[in-house]
């Protein structure tokens, strides 16, 4: 009996959660139709959703499996390049690959397939790195992945493979988010989808990661994080599961890289620095290691702060205070560093710790408040009697 009630309760909570997510998507869609396209909000929403996916993919590894990897930028680079290389329309290749005779590749694939290829390519590289490194007991993964990302950055700018990667020149003119906007015959946009699309792609990917985390395999990952020796003694094949987490995490980092390329409309290997990985690591830590919703909140907060709210610190005026002497280029980074230090000092476990923001949590919060009130009322009643 209890079990049936429990299951029904669980189903209701799932529906509420789904409704919450849907409401966010609807809000994004409406905002996009009514607000001016130049609003900073859309920068935050687009880039934030992409970073959310990448942060969650990193959290899968660092937060849920307990493996410390620093290769995110490298896998994003692979994803971005694979996407760009296979989607630039043939008619633009001559101008994009102008120093390489129009390049080597002369076909394109549909965007969705290119996104999957981007992830798959990153996953293959991850499998190759993991093969030797993940068999080692101690944590060589961080060093190996960091080195790998730096090598890739140099490698992709190498002239010899220029016919494919365009060397140190930009890859451009591949389909971007604006191409999803629906236009009428006069070329005027009748329906804006350029923000909703990254939201949907990132949302689907994050949903897949959440399903994985909550499956039998996700439990094995978390067991490894909690106690490697015990996990192995319970029959969890350490290498196989670490490799799996690493490959899947890298797959989604690759997809994230492709999305970032679509957002930026140009790809240059030099941009995928280790500083980018640290940014994402920061988001994961601020949001909470082991919290998917934390990583999502963290991403939007981080992007909003760095791209929007704190911009004034670099350009003379902030919160109505005009002080060009103080608020000049670079000051934003100083303030940002201070904020981050404060977060790390006072919220050791990040905003969310390792729990999730969900209907269940809200319900529990309300129940607690309600119970308190009820017990107070009862207390008053008993005095009255």
């Amino acid at each position, binding site marked *: 009996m209890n079990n049936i009630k429990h299951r029904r309760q669980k189903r209701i909570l799932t529906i509420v959660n789904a409704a919450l997510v849907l409401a966010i998507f609807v809000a994004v869609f409406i905002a996009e139709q009514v607000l001016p396209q130049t609003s900073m909000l859309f920068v935050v929403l687009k880039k934030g959703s992409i970073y959310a996916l990448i942060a969650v993919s990193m959290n899968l590894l660092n937060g849920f499996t307990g493996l410390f990897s620093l290769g995110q930028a490298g896998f994003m680079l692979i994803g971005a390049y694979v996407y760009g290389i296979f989607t630039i329309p043939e008619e633009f290749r001559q101008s994009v690959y102008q120093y390489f005779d129009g390049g080597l590749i002369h076909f394109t694939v549909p965007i969705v397939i290119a996104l999957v290829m981007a992830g798959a390519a990153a996953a293959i590289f991850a499998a190759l790195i993991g093969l030797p490194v993940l068999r080692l007991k101690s944590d060589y993964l961080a060093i190996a992945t960091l080195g790998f990302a730096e090598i890739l950055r140099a490698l992709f700018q190498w002239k010899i493979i220029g016919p494919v990667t365009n060397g140190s020149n930009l890859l451009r003119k591949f389909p971007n988010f604006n191409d999803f906007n629906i236009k009428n015959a006069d070329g005027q946009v009748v329906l804006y989808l350029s923000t909703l699309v990254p939201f949907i792609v990132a949302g689907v990917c994050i949903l*897949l990661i959440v399903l994985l985390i909550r*499956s039998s395999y996700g439990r094995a990952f978390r067991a490894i994080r*909690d106690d490697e020796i*015990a996990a*192995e*003694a*319970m*029959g969890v094949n350490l290498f196989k599961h670490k490799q799996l987490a690493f490959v899947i995490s890298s797959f989604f980092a690759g997809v994230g890289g492709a999305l970032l390329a679509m957002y930026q409309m140009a790809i240059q290997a030099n941009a995928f620095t280790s500083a980018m990985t640290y940014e994402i690591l920061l988001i994961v830590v601020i949001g909470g290691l082991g919290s998917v919703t934390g990583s999502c909140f963290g991403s939007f907060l981080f992007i909003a702060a760095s791209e929007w709210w704190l911009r004034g610190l670099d350009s003379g005026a902030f919160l109505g205070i005009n002080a060009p002497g103080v608020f000049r280029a670079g000051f934003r980074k100083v303030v940002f560093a201070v904020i981050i230090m404060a977060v790390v000092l006072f919220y050791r476990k990040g905003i969310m710790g390792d729990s999730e923001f969900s209907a269940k949590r809200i319900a529990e919060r309300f129940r607690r408040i309600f119970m308190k009130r009820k017990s107070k009322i009862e207390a008053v009643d008993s005095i009255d009697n």
Partner: protein
Amino acid sequence: MANKNTVLAIDNLTMKFGGVTAIDDLSLHVDEGEIVALIGPNGAGKTTAFNVITGVYEATSGLVSFDGSPIQKGVTPDKITKLGIARTFQNIRIFGSMTVLENILVAKHMRTKQNVFTATFRLSRAEERRVRREAEELLDDQGLLQMKDETASSLPYGLQRHLEIARALATDPKVILLDEPAAGMNPQETLELAAFVKRIREKHGLTVFIIEHHMDLVMQISDRIYVLDFGKLIANGTPKQIQTNKKVIDAYLGSIEEDELEETADVKS
């Protein structure tokens, strides 16, 4: 010496850590359905023996066999668990941040007929339900069912030990190795443990190999006892034979009174 239905056998096992010989030429066997105890003073090498059997350490020399066939060197602990050898740890190693139920489900993962794809997309719900039901049955047996959704690390010490036993049983073992299961339990719990070990043996058709310092418990439940001192086997036999063995009294049983008092504080692995 080994009968034909020997489940677990150790032959001439030596384990050295640098200069320290933790186990010195140890041979023993555990037969199907038996409860066999391994006793001896702290540092005698008992836990090390368990660690060699379960593949945590690779033996310096000697052989471990399971069900009549030798376990090859370099086989990882998960493979050995899959063969049918489960264990608990002297210093509790539950998955602290996971719920009580999830701890059991992890142990069931190995034998679950799912791959990462079917698991992620929930394609085998029947399998998932079966696994959950079995896990809840195991928890019920240990009196842990009401706490199934609680974080494992929030359980009191005695219940954490029970959770470890339940988790080991969830791997579907033939042999279970219990490393000081009564450590940290109160006298009442220790008393109940004896009946409990016998019960799980009947219910799961188990063979039990147990390390324990509580002599009452050991003498009460063991079919046979091996005594280890400084890595060497100094005696083996029935509880009666061991209790009257002069060598054992000198090396171990004589000093047990003080040990009994200290053992709750024992956190050595």
